[in-house]
């Protein structure tokens, strides 16, 4: 299975795991879930759409990361997943 992991569980960071999957899914667990869950899902969706990636399962554990950190960790996880495949 193709898989990519990036980030950490340290404060202000997030841990992103992305796997190849038949169905598209995004799971978010955040310390600011009540306020930002939808916004984080939207951000992940937007990054994946920009890269035309559909068949993946994304799990993100957020420890208060800002948007650019989430985006960077997601992109790194994606590249690592692709590199694992190659």
């Amino acid at each position, binding site marked *: 299975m193709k898989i990519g992991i*990036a*980030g950490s569980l*340290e*404060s*202000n*960071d997030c841990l992103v795991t992305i796997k190849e999957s038949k169905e598209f899914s995004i799971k978010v667990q955040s310390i600011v879930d009540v306020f930002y869950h939808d916004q984080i899902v939207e951000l992940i969706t937007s990054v994946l759409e920009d890269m035309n990636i559909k068949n993946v399962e994304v799990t993100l554990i957020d420890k208060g*990361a*800002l*948007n*650019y*950190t989430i*985006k*960077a*960790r997601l*992109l*790194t996880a994606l*590249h*690592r997943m692709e590199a694992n495949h190659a």
Partner: protein
Amino acid sequence: MHRSYLFIPGNNPAMLQNADIFGADAVIFDLEDAVSITEKDSARQLLKAYFETLSNPGFSIYVRINALTSSLGVIDISMVMNEIIEGIVLPKATVQDIKMLSKLLDTFESARRIKKKTVIIPIIETAKAVFEIGQIAQLPRVSALLLGAEDLTRDMEIERTKNGLEIQYPRAKIAFACKAFEIEAIDTPFTDVTDEEGLEADTLFAKSMGMNAKSAIHPNQLETINRLFTPTDAQITEALRVVKADKEAQKVHRGVFSLDGKMIDKPVVERAEKLLEKARHYGLLGDTDEK
């Protein structure tokens, strides 16, 4: 003109998002020693995304890339190159590497339509670099030299001590070369972040040798470094008196005069003017001060 350069690990989101509150004149985002080989890709991606969010950060931005002797350095530049970056800090610098980096920057600046010239700060941390300091200091794009004492003493196979006797020669050589070619001389970091007295003594000594800035590896070192490289009120007052007295002396065509029993000549006046220039830069001079 900078007093302090703070190293921040390139893969640390918490430090990145607080970079503007530490009080450093310049921040060096590190992709080299502070980032493990398995996390280089992650750090590059994080810095790229971070730089894209910045507009007026309030401090100068530098990136320490990996050495150009590995393929990592080129990948670093290709990922993070951005208009907001003031310069690239080059580890294990040699004349040859700096020339190579300059050509790479030409290419990336042109390809990304970056209008400003990205500067280079070579780290002097090998015996070869110390030998080449005079040449390095006058290369195009080089805006400062940074002493890297830890790697240098390792290269020299000598002990690194707190009193720094073993780095007097490279410190002096850097200070002279930088003065000669009008670039900044940045001192090596003081690595014991718990020793405030040691930091103060080390900074004062480096300053006395002609260094005009110091790098830091922890935000808690910045207050001391900034304070010691900032003119004091007493120094400013004295410099203002000297410059004012010089103006009076010039009216009566006197090149040398006495102030409080001390001889004041051209070098003393020039020193006072330089100090006031620094004070002006840090906003320490009011309009009325200079009248």
